[in-house]
């Protein structure tokens, strides 16, 4: 006797159950495409997807937007790389990643570097701190600079462009506590107003930290 799953056609009950499952999945597929678009999504879609579909689609790695735009020609899409060095050590060559790695392995390092550079503000440097902490042994120190360098795209007919710093952070261990000091782009740092240079040491400390991280 053959098993029900081996029959050429399903029984009506199986067919009905599978039809419902397919309909639910196809709805989930549509919502995941609509909800994971780079253009954002509506509250309604986010709520329905988050409550009903994400709990089983996310663990299976099926909650995907598939918005593979391949390129928009923006500088942000350039090639990303990671550079880690011990803070204050200008003599030793920094650790560069992906280095000489090629193919998918190198692509994964580049994705990691890009994620550090474009990390959401609500994640608050979580990735940069984790990477910096993980690199302490590699650079033989507990005070490191984690930089992400981006090689911008080359315009048609234009010259190759040198890598630019996409993000930089100083990660250090102070009395058993991990500290992350982000270097904000200079344009985004508010001018320091010090009516009385001797009175405000905390501001100076902050400015020193930013300079150190840069």
């Amino acid at each position, binding site marked *: 006797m053959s098993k029900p799953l081996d029959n050429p056609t*399903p029984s009506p009950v199986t067919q009905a159950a599978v039809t419902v499952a397919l309909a639910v999945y196809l709805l989930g597929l549509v919502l995941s495409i609509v909800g994971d678009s780079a253009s954002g999504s509506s509250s309604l879609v986010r709520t329905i997807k988050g409550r009903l579909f994400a709990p089983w689609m996310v663990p299976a*790695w099926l909650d995907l937007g598939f918005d593979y735009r391949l390129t928009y020609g923006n500088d942000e899409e350039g090639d990303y790389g990671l550079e880690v060095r011990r803070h204050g050590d200008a003599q030793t060559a920094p650790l560069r990643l992906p280095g000489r790695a090629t193919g998918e392995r190198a692509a994964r390092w580049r994705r990691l570097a890009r994620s550090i550079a474009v990390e959401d503000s609500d994640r608050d440097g979580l990735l940069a701190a*984790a990477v910096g902490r993980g690199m302490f042994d590699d650079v033989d120190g507990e005070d490191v600079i984690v930089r992400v360098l981006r090689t911008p795209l080359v315009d048609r007919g234009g010259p190759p462009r040198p890598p630019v710093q996409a993000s930089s952070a100083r990660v250090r261990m102070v009395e058993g506590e991990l500290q992350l000091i982000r270097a904000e782009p200079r344009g985004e740092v508010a001018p320091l107003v010090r009516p009385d240079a001797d009175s405000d040491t905390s501001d100076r400390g902050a400015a020193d930290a930013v300079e150190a991280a840069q």
Partner: protein
Amino acid sequence: MTARSVVARSSSDPSSGAGIAALGDAWTRFWFGPVDSRPLALVRIGAAAIALVAWWSYAADLQAWFGPAGILPADAMREWRSPCGFSLFDWAASPVALTVLFGATGVVLALLLVGFTTPVVAPLAAVLWASLLHRGPMLAGPADDCLSILLWCLAIGPAGEHFSFDSWLGGRANRSAPRPGWRASISQGLLQVHATAIAAAAVLAQFKGDVWWNGLAAWYLAASPRSGAGDLLPLLERSEYLTNLFTHGVTAFEIFFAIGLWCGPTQRFVARIGLIGWPLVGLLAGEPVWGLAMALFALPLAVRR
């Protein structure tokens, strides 16, 4: 509208009733009509081979990324990823445990490739693959996404009935030859739906960027150090028309693929074009593994008799 009003309208309007019935028939034929599982076996071999390549790309940096002293510790990743995310690799707290679990993933993918105990290893491969991706979500790329879909489709259908160790063992035990079935139909239907969804979503995303309209996208793709089409650069630099042709060719191909897969007369032709077109797009975009994975979605329709 209530169920009753639907019935009332159907009974008063025979054409709409016939339309609903035809739709039901088409749905049943598409999802439950018995089909041969040989194409699915080919997808199994291709997907497992690509998954092994992608799996191997983690090997050299496994401890550096996911090890106890790695740069992507499990607790940080739990905080970083979606709250619904889940990874078996989170429990691999020691270097040995991590190596064993990672090795087991490779073994499962290899068993899927040769088709040994396929009904067990196919779902296991999908679960382990999703777990590996969730362990470091920021390391995953488009090829990994597509592989995840492919592995789940293989887990649903009878992917080991042909070209497999299982079928060889079945032949030795004088078991009857596998017949076309509905589970193969569901698997292949899902592959077709996803092929369309991915191509359509990609082309919609591209149309939001100026370079896909002004025809320069192919230049930026080829000029990237990641691209495997760097040899094209001198040609593209010399001729703007050629650059435009490549750019519009990519979008035209994606539209043609998404629509053509659903038209009876063009279906097989479009699928066969997809077998060549996707790897070429992947090469241009610096995502060759993704291009190969995309081609696998088209494989069942390309080889269907």
